[in-house]
């Protein structure tokens, strides 16, 4: 790890100003950043620690809910109010990483963490995400890589479990930047690497996620989150699936279907959502939606199995949500 200066501002506005420099990085729990620094893939001159700034770790379950970006995954997982109104978010937080990590990892950090692609994480591969010319995964070892949106510049998968759930709930982010505050709908937060693979979100220099607002679920709302991993202890998912919809008069309305760990962003399947709209919950409807979802998949050389997993997991998530 290279030497760096740790600064501990007392307000987010100051932190935003300090972290706008190109050689500065924001640190909350430090779970991901310190890892990258130790692996030699990031060497910031300045580390701006925001973890001690007061007032950003609150959890107001609502609904509507308001969460500070410094709320830990462990607290989100354990909050009874959140679990009642937004079970998919609680499950997403509860299933991430390990108990030790969940007690350090923050909501903001979980949303802004960098991908786990092994080519990106190894300093000896100068991949596109690090400004290089190649995506090594495309013709290399890609068993855990993307199966959707694989025709872009990078085929990593986005690792944020809470991002998957928040996208399904249609949350919005409170962002503090050097020029002030703004509200960013989560649909516009994640960045598809159409041209630029070096970032995963649309925050501009110095902008920091300060909090998350989740709208109150409509009457009859249902949601579910599922995570499929090879190992049960400390493993990144092969596929995450999150669904949220309302059941009104026995039919599905306003469904949002989001996959995690299958694309460079949490991946919203509009095709599955269209297939569900107005349908009556049944195994046949689940199958129809899952088949619609995977029709868009374009797996790489080694990961066609993940398409099967996405299909199975979406069917199960739907059955779980309307059971």
């Amino acid at each position, binding site marked *: 790890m290279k030497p760096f200066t740790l600064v501990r501002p007392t307000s987010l506005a100051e932190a935003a100003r300090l972290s706008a420099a190109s050689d500065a990085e924001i640190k909350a729990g430090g779970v991901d950043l310190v890892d990258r620094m130790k692996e030699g893939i990031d060497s910031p001159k300045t580390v701006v620690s925001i973890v001690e700034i007061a007032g950003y770790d609150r959890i107001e379950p609502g609904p509507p809910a308001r969460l500070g970006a410094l709320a830990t995954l462990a607290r989100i997982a354990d909050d009874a109010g959140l679990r009642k109104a937004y079970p998919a978010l609680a499950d997403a937080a509860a299933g991430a990483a390990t108990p030790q990590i969940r007690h350090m990892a923050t909501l903001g950090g979980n949303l802004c963490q960098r991908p786990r692609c092994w080519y990106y994480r190894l300093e000896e591969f100068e991949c596109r995400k690090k400004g290089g010319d190649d995506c090594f995964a495309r013709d290399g070892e890609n068993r855990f890589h993307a199966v959707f949106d694989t025709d872009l510049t990078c085929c990593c998968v986005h690792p944020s479990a809470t991002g998957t759930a928040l996208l399904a709930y249609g949350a919005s982010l409170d962002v503090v930047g050097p020029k002030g505050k703004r509200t960013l709908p989560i649909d516009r937060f994640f960045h598809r690497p159409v041209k630029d693979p070096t970032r995963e979100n649309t925050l501009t220099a110095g902008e920091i996620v300060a909090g998350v607002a989740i709208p109150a679920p409509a009457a009859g709302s249902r949601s579910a989150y599922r995570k499929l991993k*090879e190992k049960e202890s*400390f493993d990144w998912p092969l596929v995450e699936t999150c669904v949220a919809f309302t059941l009104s008069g026995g039919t599905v309305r306003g469904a949002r279907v989001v996959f995690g760990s299958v694309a460079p962003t949490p991946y919203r399947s509009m095709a599955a959502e269209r297939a569900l709209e107005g349908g009556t919950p049944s195994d046949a409807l689940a199958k129809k939606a899952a088949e619609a979802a995977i029709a868009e998949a374009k797996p790489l050389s080694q990961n066609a199995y993940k398409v099967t997993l996405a299909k199975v997991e979406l069917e199960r998530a739907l059955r779980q949500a309307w059971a």
Partner: protein
Amino acid sequence: MKEKIRVGFEGDFQFREIEIAAGDPAPWDPSQKFSVVGTRQPRLDGKAKATGEAKYSIDVRLPGMLYGRILRCMLPAATVKSLDLSAARKMPGVRAAIALAEPGEKLRFAGQEVAAVAAETPDQAEDALAAIRVAYEARPFVVSLDDARKSGAPLVFEGKTETKTSGGDVESGGKNLARHGNVLGPRSTVKGDVDAGFQKAAGVVEGTYDTQVQTHSALETHGLVARWEGTELTVWASTQGIFDMRDQLAETLQIPVSKVRVITEYMGGGFGAKFGPRVEGLAAARLAKEAGAPVKLFLDRKEEQLASGNRPSARQTVKAGATRDGKLTALQLTVYGNGGTNGGTGTSGPVKNVYACENLKVDEYDVFTNAGPGTAMRAPGHPQGAFALEATMDELAKAIGMDPLEFRLKNDPSAVRREQFRVGAEKIGWKDRDARRKTSDPEILRGVGVGAAVWYNTGGTGPRATVTIHKDGSAEVEHGVQDLGTGSRTMVAMVAAEELGVPLDEVSVSIGDSRLPFAPDSGGSTTTPSSAPAIRRAAWEAKQALARAVAKEWKVPAESVKVEKGRVSAAGNPPHEATWAAACKLLPSEGVAATAERADNHEDAWKRFTTGCQFAEVEVDTATGKVRVNRVVAVHDCGVPINPLTTESQIQGGVIQGVSYALFEDRILDRPTGRMVNPNVEAYKIAGALDVPEIDVTLVSVWDGINNTNSVGIGEPATVPTAAAIANAVSHALGVRIRQIPITPEVVLAAVRERDSKGGRS
């Protein structure tokens, strides 16, 4: 001296007359009333380890100590064109820099060592590596077994094969074997006539089985701290063999053995990969010499994954035949093993040594690739071999319409293992395993499978121990053995306490130092059967020294004094009797001590293979391919266990490592660049707490009389059959054969597709 002893196991004892060396006690008899041996004793150092008080070699910090770091070439095949350390030597804090490769030298895997530096801080050492000027010429490379076997494949060794072996490696057969391209061998074994055997068979099956590369992934990485004081070298090492380390350091550095001291007070695992100083240990010693200061050089996790050894992968084809009534008629194994730049990848142990078969043919080939060298790993060759053999046994049983367990019992020559199979079958519920396949969830199927373990070593001659009895009745044992984490320290104390009749908490133990009496390497599951007999003999001789001292005080002939548990007596007129404490009070202030060497194994005792078997119950999600191991029943022969608590712990560890091998672990090399893409413990997946099944261990005590404690090692046999049993259980659940590990969701989904395409939803 000839003595009649009882050998065997519960329900099957026999008498043997064996020759016992003068001065060595006879093996403990099955009727022996133990007071310490056989009791469940927590590790003496358990609390120190759990609290962090125990200082491992990797924790050693000496005043003025420097930090060593190694530069590695990340090309899979390269020739060093030039190497210049001068700029690195001038970097801040740098005190020494040495070359580990010379210009013109060929490097053969990504991660191979090129140079090393020592600096005042780890970061300075890291920065200095970047200042080393090195130029390589990249050469063509090959990293996959299939590609390496093709004609015209890039050659890993253009000239002669240069492989390195270390303690415990499988015999690579060496110089007389032919090499064609990257393929060395075969090493062949022929018994009887397999073709005739297949002719006689009512059923013949053949299958090809793939296993992956597994890395040792010990918690403590490889390395040592080296300190020179004049011409004397002391190292604090993480090693499985402190005496072997001492001898190799002396030989390589050309200094007398007496000038080298190796200390391993606590150790964080080895699994076969920690023998000798290796590149990093020698580099630390040379850097320390050049710098004139102690140097610590421990690998980081990435280096550990790249270059510290691994269990080779294997592609095995097994063909077997049996008569209609279930007798094996022929068994044939052809294996292509891939140990990267190392040979010794054979897997034939189980095929040769588990089931009886008159006609056997084995051909073992080593295939070289540009990948990190394989080395001994917990039962070298055996988990691979057991996986292929036990799958074949299931297939063949099916072909002749026989229950797979009944088929095994008919062909198993070991009475102990036949009993173990029966015990395990009862516990896992073998009888109704077919009825239990279906679960309440139509997508989840349950399966039960079995595999056999075999191992060989019975310990060896050479170990010495010194036992001192103090005037206050307490005792000390000095024995240089390293404790890998298996519980050797506790074992040493227990054997001495048992023989002396002294409470365990009054026995102190000094281990882990080459200045102590010679002890064995910890490899091949030989530690306990090598050490324990030496300790018992030293304690026995110390008791005789006590008897002589007491006889002098009582003025009776020494041979009339009997030392029994807690009591010393002499018949005669008048008879003498004293408690242990009172008798010890008669000793001179220096107490009495005896140093003894382990006697040879009793060749005329009951020689056998160490046997075991494991049964696994799994649940398979047929829609996602995910496998969950519910339960493993492990039944093992471990001689007469000294400490059942740590023996069971060893078996649990073997099972866990086996579950991990069966389902998760896989060293993945990037084919286009030849580099490992998961050199960590995140993407290199190791079973965690939630992945561990319920483990039910049964120890079958076996009294073989081979040494005076009847002890046998358990470290290796404990992991031999686990993956085999799990793969057979998954195959049973699915109704289709699993032919590769790790059994990932992808592998299971492919198997389900194969089954459904054949319409065989059995």
